[in-house]
């Protein structure tokens, strides 16, 4: 349990042998928001202001920040669900269209998004098998036996039994649903997966298992993750670099290893220091406290 609460940090040199990683995603000058577009070309409520990001292939970038800082909006803009007002998103050096309709099927396939709540992200009226089959048919034109076999392989990949494919999402546990949610993204055979708070709705033990799975799959399949979270310990566990968002702006970016010590921006410092710490030795330390020990002796 305690291990799950505080996943161990990541070795920044673990993948140093992959010299010169290529940027898979390059976001430059991205500005976006909601509401009617005004005469200046900006929406009424600007949520993201001039965001620049670069993400190397096979690495993970954590995006942290408080609620309302624009983390999820960033994911939606990158996925093409919300057209950007300004700026560009490029994948492998090719600039992507602003909306999903402006992107080719291959571009859409390479970039998948996984949502926070698996309860609403899976169609409650479709069996798991059908949910996983659709991206296979849509992106790869698979059918019949080959598709069935691929569904089995995907379930195996996310460590779920094959028999689960006949169940409806309502008949699964929260962790199982999130694994299916992730398997659906994997079905597209993506290169970059945007994970929008995927462990936030899970308890710490299940979340830790999901994080382990993500880590394993990254190594097996060479995936790149953009990991959006408000939970700093999960970001620490899976990410190589962290970007800190505050009021729609990226205030700082640093390697995860420097997160505890190297934050420079005052907001990042505040955010990182406000993580509650699990101090397992607090009861023992009470005995060493002079005033407390004296009080105990008197009784």
């Amino acid at each position, binding site marked *: 349990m305690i291990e799950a609460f505080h996943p161990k940090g990541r070795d920044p040199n673990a993948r140093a042998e992959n010299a010169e990683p290529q940027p898979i995603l390059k976001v430059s000058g991205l500005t976006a928001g909601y509401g009617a577009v005004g005469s200046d070309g900006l929406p009424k409520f600007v949520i993201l202001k001039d965001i620049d990001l670069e993400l190397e292939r096979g690495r993970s970038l954590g995006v942290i920040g408080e609620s309302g800082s624009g983390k999820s909006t960033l994911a939606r803009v990158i996925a093409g669900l919300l057209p950007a007002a300004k700026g560009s998103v490029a994948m492998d050096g090719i600039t992507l269209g602003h909306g999903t309709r402006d992107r080719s099927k291959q571009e859409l396939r390479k970039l998948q*998004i996984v949502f926070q709540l698996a309860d609403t992200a899976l169609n409650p009226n479709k069996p798991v098998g059908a949910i996983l089959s659709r991206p296979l048919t849509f992106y790869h034109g698979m059918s019949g036996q080959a598709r069935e076999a691929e569904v089995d392989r995907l379930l195996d990949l996310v460590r779920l039994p094959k028999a689960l494919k006949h169940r409806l999402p309502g008949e699964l546990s929260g962790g199982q649903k999130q694994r299916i949610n992730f398997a659906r993204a994997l079905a597209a055979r993506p290169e970059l997966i945007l994970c929008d708070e995927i462990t936030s709705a899970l308890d710490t033990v299940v979340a830790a298992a999901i994080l382990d799975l993500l880590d394993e799959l990254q190594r097996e399949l060479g995936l790149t993750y953009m990991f959006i979270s408000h939970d700093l310990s999960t970001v620490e566990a899976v990410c190589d670099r962290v970007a800190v968002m505050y009021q729609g702006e990226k205030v700082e970016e640093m390697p995860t290893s420097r997160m505890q010590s190297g934050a420079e921006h005052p907001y990042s410092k505040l955010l990182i220091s406000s993580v509650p710490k699990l101090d397992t030795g607090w009861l023992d330390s009470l005995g060493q406290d002079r005033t407390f020990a004296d009080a105990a002796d008197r009784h």
Partner: protein
Amino acid sequence: MTMTAPARKGHFGFHVNAVGIIGAAIILFWMVVAIAAPWISPYPVGQIVDFDYYGPISSQFWFGTDYLGRDMLSRVLMGARYTVGISLASVTIACFIGVTLGMIAAVISGWFDAILSRFLDALNSIPSLMFGLVVVAAVGSSISVLVLTIAVLYAPGSYRFARALAVNVNAMDFVTVARARGEGTLYTIREEIFPNIIGPVLADFGLRFVFIVLLLSGLSFLGLGVQPPNADWGALVRENIGGLSFGAPAVIVPSIAIASLTISVNMLIDNLPQRIRDRSE
């Protein structure tokens, strides 16, 4: 992982409960009656066969006679053709148009939704009997005109209902996922939205059917619906309402017929056969 014993399979892999079977049987019965009416009704519909009006049930006239002394059994049997046929046809057309447009509007949204919604709201504001009057005055009364008129009248309500449901489903993450995947509008509507609104839509179908049976009788009463000497069940109740104080079967029998049909439609819809999912692995 242990699997529970597979559910007992009915024929074709469907599971139906008793209430649903009873509902389906009554509907089927009335459909057969509607088709076979000309051959099984003992007297012609318009023929006055008895000098006594509001006659009681007898071996000669099983359901008594009406206010003119016509045989009620024959009239109810022939009336089934109009009530079952017209109501089912128009409710099907109305719901098909309304639900389809409602889902399209919810998914496309924007100005398309705004214009369509306002247009159908305007259509909804026209009183149904007035609209029927105008249409019948303009093109004359026939079964197909009646079916289409009623369908047009009931489609906006069905549209509103389906759109409200579809807008809710459309906001769910799985629809967003489908959109991010690059799915088209047709797939989103058919596979992601429709299966999630089908339950309430069918309940609405049943209710709307009942309303149409009543509207049809109203139109018939004004002379716009089924033309005399033929009559649908609603019209039979209306024309024999004077016999209520005598306890005449002429008013009770068509009422029972309407009740049995509308209740069984709702019984069937609330207990639709459920497909048994194959979990044998």
